[in-house]
């Protein structure tokens, strides 16, 4: 059989549907010892902000049952250094690049979009709106329809129109389809589902929160049922929108689960920490499973769990 492993996400074709998740693959340089970056559908870079950021104090992580909390605080070199160092390096390795951007204000998002527009070799932009809005007492952009809309609109209006926008949403909302609705209206070409859930661990020795930042983002297999539900709900309401699924995927069967729910591609985050070769394992297992189940292409399996017949 002629199996087609390419996938189309937000109008862009990728050679396969397995991506690294933002913030979980460093700059790419750390993984290249383990496999060629060209073997990935795409590298999604760590969310970059306008200025350099030190991130939060440590401890920044706590292991939890089938998951972990992190509170990195968006440490990074800032957009200028990123465009100068990281992008050219990734391009030189032949990687498909999805740039993740994060802002503290609507103006930040607009500015980041402008700065990225001129750069060649970028396949898409993932807009991380699961970060605190300094103009609104630190409320997370994607937890409010008004600010979610404003951030995505700002990107849309300022970006090179040929660059697809993928809005990354937080699951910590009452109705994720409502937020999906507003960001689609604001011009998002695709959605990334899901970011981490807000969690906390208390150290029973110190009897204080374990993370320096008190709360952190919960990721890993523990949250996979929440991710699958979010993808399924959004796909049911917006069958036309492309979804980049993520949340606790560690093997091909689980990536397949996300695709059946409605994801056109799958990002792998926490699993990279447990196994630097996780993406390659997932990719191989997924391909085998899709063929075994009789799908001629990734596209044929996307959202297949929604069918009403049989």
């Amino acid at each position, binding site marked *: 059989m002629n199996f087609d492993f390419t996938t189309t996400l937000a109008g862009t074709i990728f050679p396969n549907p397995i991506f690294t998740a933002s913030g979980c693959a*460093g700059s790419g340089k*750390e993984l290249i*010892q383990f496999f060629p970056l060209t073997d990935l559908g795409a590298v999604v870079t760590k969310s970059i902000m306008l200025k350099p950021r*030190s991130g939060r104090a440590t401890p920044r992580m706590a*292991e939890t049952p089938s998951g972990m909390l992190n509170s990195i605080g968006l440490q990074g070199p800032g957009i200028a250094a990123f465009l100068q160092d990281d992008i050219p390096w990734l391009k030189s390795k032949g990687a498909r690049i999805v740039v993740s951007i994060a802002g503290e204000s609507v103006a930040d998002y607009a500015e980041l979009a402008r700065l990225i527009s001129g750069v060649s070799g970028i396949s898409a932009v993932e807009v991380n709106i699961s970060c605190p809005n300094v103009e609104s007492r630190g409320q997370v952009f994607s937890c409010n329809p008004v600010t979610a809309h404003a951030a995505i609109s700002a990107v849309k209006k300022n970006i090179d129109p040929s660059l697809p926008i993928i809005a990354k949403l937080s699951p910590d909302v009452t109705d994720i389809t409502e937020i999906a609705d507003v960001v689609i209206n604001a011009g998002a070409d695709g959605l990334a589902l899901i970011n981490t859930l807000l969690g906390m661990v208390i150290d029973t020795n110190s009897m204080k929160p374990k993370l320096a930042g008190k709360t952190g983002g919960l990721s890993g297999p523990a949250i996979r049922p929440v991710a699958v539900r979010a993808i399924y709900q959004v796909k049911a309401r917006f069958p036309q929108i492309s979804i980049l699924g993520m949340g606790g995927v560690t093997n091909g069967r689980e990536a397949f689960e996300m695709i059946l729910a409605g994801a056109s591609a799958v990002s792998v985050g926490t699993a990279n920490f447990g*196994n630097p070769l996780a993406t390659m394992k997932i990719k191989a297992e997924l391909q085998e499973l899709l063929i075994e189940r009789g799908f001629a292409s990734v596209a044929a399996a996307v959202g297949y769990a929604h069918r009403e017949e049989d």
Partner: protein
Amino acid sequence: MINKYAHAVDAEIISNKRVGAYHHMVFEVGAMAGQVRPGNFVAISVGGETSAMVLRRAFAIHRSMDRGGSGGVVELVVAPHGGGSKWLTSLEVHRKVNIVGPLGTAFGIPTEPVRALLVGGGYGSAPLFGLAEVLKSRGSRVDMVLGASTAGKIYAPLEGKRAVNSLTITTDDGSAGLHGKVSDFLPDLIAASGTEIIYSCGPMGMLAAISKIAGELDLVHQCAVEEAMACGIGVCMTCVLPLRDTNGTIRMQRSCIEGPVVDGSRVIWDSPRAIPEGTWGAQ
């Protein structure tokens, strides 16, 4: 390239023995053994296939032996502490575990013979014996001092003892060797052995005390730090600590790839877990 020789291997456990408070464990790792330098560590999957523990555990490489072909081994010293290490130390020989390594920076070895003092706290002594062997083979004088809270937590195997010119033991409770903290005895030891360089591995408090002494005496101090690590390979940014650059800028750097071995003078010892004022990108 970062972690140039790192790769993953399903390694068979070929020995697992309790030694005091620790387990000395030997793993058949094949070619990996030949690529290890003293100070490197490995990251091991724990809990088996249906484990709720999603992160690897880091362990300093105690010694490695390249037996040619595919016959290399690495040795670790593991303290049964929480879920991951208790699982690992409970395994029987012939079981396989997935090991990624060698990871991280190594101790710098001077090209000329030197007078080196190696200081270890608890299982922090583990990487020092391999280091001692290399230093000795280059004609250096190696003095070693190992401290722990109590006798059972001193890890000092016989063959290791033979590799050093002198070995001093200290315990907080006086149950073995000198009664007190390692740092209490350092100035005298340094003076007695004419130390030119200090290598250390152990808890942050101990490393800080050593660094202070090294600074006062203007000695080079290479220390292996230990921060909670989620990935061990540089992709997660959880293991950072503030480190001073050569030009004085403080940046939050990953202890897994910029370390674990770092120059003691680069560490901000009074706040290794905070964001010191003036750190690059501090909000």
